[in-house]
């Protein structure tokens, strides 16, 4: 009994000593992007009781994978509403897995939006277009939340730039997100180029686009790709660049 009480006393003293160490470690973990999930009532409501218990036991990645497989099955059955719910749960459980954010956005903005436009049960086109726009917005929302959770990774910025370009035809925002991706470590070498391409389509920003494309062109042969030359030629004409400052004609014949 006495020994038990002494052991309890030691545990309490050790507890007092370990508190600052554990807090510092938790802070370090968060700084380095570990422990991205907070266990609170909000999470409990989002992932359900069983999921919450599993996540509490340290198996949140497995729970997220199980939900991902369910989402895959829902996709095969074109259950878009269920997929949305499942992907919200998955991304809540695993906010650092880019694949989940990217797949969720792709399903919403590309697959579900096309399905909404081709919905035979909806005879009114206006409503089909409305549904399509809503799915674009859901895809965008996934990517924006993904970027917020992974500010150090370029892949989701690239995906959002693609979404702005292909779905919203918003070249300015596409250029902005490609530029954001290019500024991050481990960015793809084409991000800078794509940002300049998108900018070249923006009314009123031709001069800026021209300077960026020209700067890329001046970097050497590796950057002198057909699209870059085509866009430069277009801007040279539009901005009436003097002949002696234009890129050599021979490159046009590539």
């Amino acid at each position, binding site marked *: 009994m006495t020994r038990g009480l002494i052991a309890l006393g030691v545990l309490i003293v050790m507890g007092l000593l370990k508190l600052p160490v554990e807090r510092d470690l938790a802070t370090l973990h968060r700084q*380095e992007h570990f422990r*991205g999930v907070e266990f609170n009532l909000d999470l409990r409501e989002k992932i359900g009781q069983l999921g919450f218990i599993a996540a509490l036991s340290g198996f949140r990645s497995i729970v997220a994978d199980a939900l991902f497989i369910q989402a895959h099955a829902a996709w095969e059955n074109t259950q878009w509403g269920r997929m949305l719910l499942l992907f919200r749960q998955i991304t809540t459980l695993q906010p650092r897995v880019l694949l989940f954010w990217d797949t969720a956005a792709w399903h919403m903005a590309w697959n579900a939006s096309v399905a909404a436009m081709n919905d035979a049960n909806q005879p009114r086109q206006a409503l089909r277009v409305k549904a399509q726009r809503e799915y674009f917005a859901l895809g965008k929302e996934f990517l924006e939340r993904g970027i917020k959770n992974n500010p150090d990774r370029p892949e989701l910025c690239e995906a959002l730039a693609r979404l702005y370009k292909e779905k919203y035809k918003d070249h300015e925002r596409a250029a902005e997100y490609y530029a954001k991706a290019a500024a991050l470590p481990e960015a793809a070498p084409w991000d800078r180029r794509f940002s300049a391409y998108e900018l070249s389509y923006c009314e009123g920003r031709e001069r800026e686009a021209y300077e960026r494309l020209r700067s890329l062109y001046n970097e050497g042969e590796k950057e002198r790709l057909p699209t870059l030359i085509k866009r430069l030629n277009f801007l040279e004409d539009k901005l009436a660049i003097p002949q002696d400052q234009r890129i050599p004609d021979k490159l046009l014949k590539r």
Partner: protein
Amino acid sequence: MTDGETSSTLQPFDAPTIPKRHRAFSLSRILAITSNTLTELTRLKVFYVLLVFGLLLIGSSIFMAQFSFQQEFQILKDVSLGAISMFTSLLAIVATARMLPRDIDDRTVYTILAKPVPRFEYVVGKIAGVLLLLAISTLVMAAAFFAVLYLREQAVLQATAKQMASAPPDQLADALRAVRASAFNADLIPGIIIIFLKACLLTALTLFVSTFATSTIFTIVVMVFIYFIGHLEATAREYWLTAHGSGLVTRVFLAIVALLFPDLQAFNLVDDIVAGTAISMAVFTKTALLGIFYTVIYTLLSVFVFYGKEL
């Protein structure tokens, strides 16, 4: 008495007949208990867990063939590391919980302690046996996981090379690089070491609980509760230290959780490692030291309580 008679009656000098001085601490005694514990646990067929792990790996890799290679590798890594974590934690709790009660029931402990074996050596030998079992299991599971990951990676690389045979060489190289980047990641190794350290912590804590527990079932049930509470300790700690509006009872409860339980969430790093988060040397060292600290403290407390236990 002749010389011949003397030589036949006098005993020759024989070193082993001189009684050895008893040493307070003997590594060989601890090793004997450790190897005995390991043999005992092996006879209980605990390594069948590894068979289940192997089947899980094979099953999941066949099932995941319908996904893209990024999804396949993501799920394979999640499932494998989750299974390693689950099996090592289960092994740690179940194997340790039955150790002391069984020795007392079988009266093995009396035979051992009747000899000049201090209780400290007995407890250390026992826990070392379980830790050795955990180390072997973790190594085998990790090796199986890396082998399956490598085989799948090679299969996907071959398929990609075949599909992109007519593509320009730089595009093919990019595609192959993407496949390799999705498969093996060197940070998985420190992640597995942290899983092992979490199992070591659970072993020491189970041993501590079993020193005053009355039965194996009691120890296992208490450890299951501790396992869940330990994963909530960080939340309780932060709430206790930062929230000021809660009542006294709540604050006392949170303080008990924060002070008495280990922060098990600190050892769940693999989820984020699989997601691509790099583990720095500082994070690894500090987390590993915390695990070792807990293991040593709980072992010492177990020895302390076991010294006072009436056998």
